[in-house]
């Protein structure tokens, strides 16, 4: 059984802080299919469209029939460990600091043998459940997990290095007024977060849940306005060195298309949703990226909540969609810029949220609690792209299938 992860001791600022290093990150183009699947929590392997062979490692042709018609498809996760080792010597700087490291061979029920990371609770002859996860280098890797959930299994050091689990970590949620903030706080505390900072802009304004949230154990409300650089600078100076997870819930949304709309609202949407994200990253990113190897409460993830219409515009929310597309684009650049540190950029794509600004839309809508659940799941599983709610999942699938068809459907031309 996994040893329960203990809260970290207070850090001695005199001691050297561990410098972030990455596991080997070069991959062939074919192998990036693993990364793409891991990013959304799928377990996919290459299937030959001609003969059905499931193969691993990723190839450019089928090892049974030489067809080049290979597709990444969901694959049964079952398998059995047929060999294991505990590595005590490695020339790689990342692993040298984390030895011993366990790896094993798993015979998949689907056919191939895979070399993978082994969770501490599994060994030779054990049946396992395979998972694809992103490692610190942001590449998809296989890990064999116990077939049945075991207590504290997420505390296993090898598994924890592949997730952004909130346990014993300190979280900053940027906007107290977001309906998702309160359920997020609850879900994070339940997942074991040690402290939660909640940002509040214009604290003189009414309508925030200030008193109730500030009264919660382990929660501190701090002044923060993502459109105000000086407020960001001040807060980053205060808590930037202890922000392990940042969740951006700040959002400005107004309905309306582009033709008849006022650019004042559009500007505000870009100011908060796109530039606000950029400012947040500029204020907190450098501190977080320097602390990604900092023990149990290392910096681990930067989460952005974005409308699924970042992928394809909803003409009824034209300017808002544009701000979300901009935010998505910024997040992709941030992901590349965070790469060297191993800090994970997570996008949680949501459908219309169940709030006043989406009041005229028909259901299904995303309740704040569901959004909070998706965010925490994304952290616990270590995903990069999380799609929350039926609308977001449906839209993602249509977007993958054909972005142009989706665009025409969103413009009202499809039945």
């Amino acid at each position, binding site marked *: 059984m996994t040893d329960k992860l203990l809260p970290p001791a207070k850090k001695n600022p005199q001691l050297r802080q561990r410098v972030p290093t990455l*596991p*080997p*990150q*070069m*991959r*062939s183009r*074919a*192998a990036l299919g693993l990364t793409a699947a891991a990013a959304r929590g799928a377990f996919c392997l290459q299937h030959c469209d001609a003969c059905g062979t499931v193969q*691993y*490692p*990723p190839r450019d042709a089928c*090892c049974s029939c030489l067809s080049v018609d290979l597709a990444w498809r969901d694959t049964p996760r079952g398998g059995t460990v*047929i*060999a*294991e*080792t*505990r*590595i*005590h*010597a*490695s*020339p*790689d700087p*990342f*692993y040298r600091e984390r030895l*011993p*490291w*366990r*790896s*094993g*061979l798993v*015979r998949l029920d689907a056919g191939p*043998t*895979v*070399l*993978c*990371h082994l969770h501490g609770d599994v060994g*030779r002859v054990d049946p396992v459940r395979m998972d694809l996860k992103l*490692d610190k*280098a942001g*590449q998809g*890797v*296989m890990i064999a997990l116990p077939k049945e959930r075991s207590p504290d299994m997420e505390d296993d050091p090898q598994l924890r290095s592949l997730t952004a689990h909130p346990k014993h970590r300190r979280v900053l949620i940027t906007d107290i007024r977001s309906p998702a903030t309160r359920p997020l706080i609850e879900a994070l505390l339940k997942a074991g977060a040690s402290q939660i900072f909640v940002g509040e802009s214009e604290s003189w304004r009414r309508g925030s849940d200030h008193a109730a949230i500030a009264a919660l154990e382990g929660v501190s409300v701090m002044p923060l306005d993502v459109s105000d650089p000086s407020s960001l600078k001040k807060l980053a100076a205060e808590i930037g060195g202890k922000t392990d997870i940042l969740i951006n819930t700040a959002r400005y949304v107004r309905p309306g298309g582009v033709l008849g709309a006022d650019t004042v609202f559009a500007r505000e949407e870009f100011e908060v949703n796109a530039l606000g994200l950029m400012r947040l990253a500029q204020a907190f990113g450098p501190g977080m990226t320097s602390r990604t190897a900092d023990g149990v409460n290392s910096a681990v993830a930067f989460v952005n909540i974005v409308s699924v219409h970042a992928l394809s515009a909803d003409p009824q929310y034209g300017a808002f969609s544009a701000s979300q597309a901009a935010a998505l684009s910024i997040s992709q650049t941030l992901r590349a810029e965070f790469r060297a540190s191993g800090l994970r950029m997570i996008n949680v794509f949501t459908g219309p949220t169940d709030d006043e600004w989406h009041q005229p839309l028909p259901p299904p809508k995303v309740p704040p609690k569901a959004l909070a659940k998706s965010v925490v799941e994304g952290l616990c599983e270590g995903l990069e792209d999380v799609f929350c709610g039926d609308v977001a999942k449906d839209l993602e699938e249509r977007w993958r299938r054909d972005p142009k068809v989706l665009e025409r459907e969103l413009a009202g031309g499809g039945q």
Partner: protein
Amino acid sequence: MRRQNYDGVVLTAPVSVPYVRYSQETAHWWIARALKQTLEVAGLAPRELDGFSVSSFTLFPDSPVGLTQHLGLSPRWLDSIPMGGASGVVALRRAARAVQAGDADVVACIAGDANRIDSFRQLLSSFSRFAMDASYPYGSGGPNASFALIADAYMAEYGVTREDFGRIAVAQRANALHYPDAIMKKPLTLEQYLSARPISEPFGLFDCVMPCAGAEGFLVMREDEAERRGLAYARIAGTIERHNAFPEDPVQLRGGWVMDIDELYEMAGCGPEAIDLLQTYDDYPLISMMQFEDLGFCAKGEGAQFVREHDLTIGGDFPHNTSGGQLSVGQAGAAGGYLGLVEAIRQVTGKAGPTQVAKARTAMVSGFGMINYDRGLCTSATIITGAGQ
């Protein structure tokens, strides 16, 4: 079709350039030294050489083509054998056919590799595409970890213990104490083997080879040419090679030799009992044990029993890896795939000096190379004979 024999073609002028742990010198430098030595033994000038076969991991950005200009050679037959531990025997096979067909009169077969500080890590991380994609990112243990997995499965399947592997390592160290160029010069006991620090379980330090720099080489020519030059030579009784055998085996408990070994003995017109000494590819004692089984010296699963019942030292009843093998001499990259063959040529021609096995006339050499992902893909073997002492 029945394969032709190798009548009239011989192996001669075996040379080993003493290995060093780390060296600033390049693969070109090491290969040049082995080539110069082997040509000098035969009394050949570099320009006279018309066939050249090269194995090296560290020539980049050059290939053997660049080496011809670098070393001032004008061969009419040029080969590159990138098969790691299987390289020696495979180079021999190709070169022997070229000489037999008259495409070349003399082929120099050379393997050499550099080992600068940190070059081993760089080699591992980009060893193959599958290694880059699917093995190196999982703890970066390199071949030690990959073969440890094979060892774990093998031990569980056949009830083998670490002591059994240890007997092979200990016997090889005893042999190495007679081989002047071995990097390991201290005796090794079974207790030391068992208590060594773990590298990748079940492997400890003495299961693993030490990467180093060095080179090995020999010449392939017609028998009459060797006679004319007054060279001691070995004949080739048979050879085999195989790649990616048994891809459906979930883990490698046997090598490709199993597919071809009967043909090897048939070509050579003998059985395992006729072999005076065996040189296996010993990147790990486990792999040598697997070869005892797959080359027909004992049945599958009886390798452990075999090593318990035999004395593997130079003076023993089953002389094995008489120079000490890579485990004690060191692994100089692709030269590791030549070490056993070069030693075997010395042995059957009576030129092995302090490691000489008495009355050695027939030797088997096997090669094993290239852990592309989860297993070694190339296997090779040959039986060579000589006049002995």
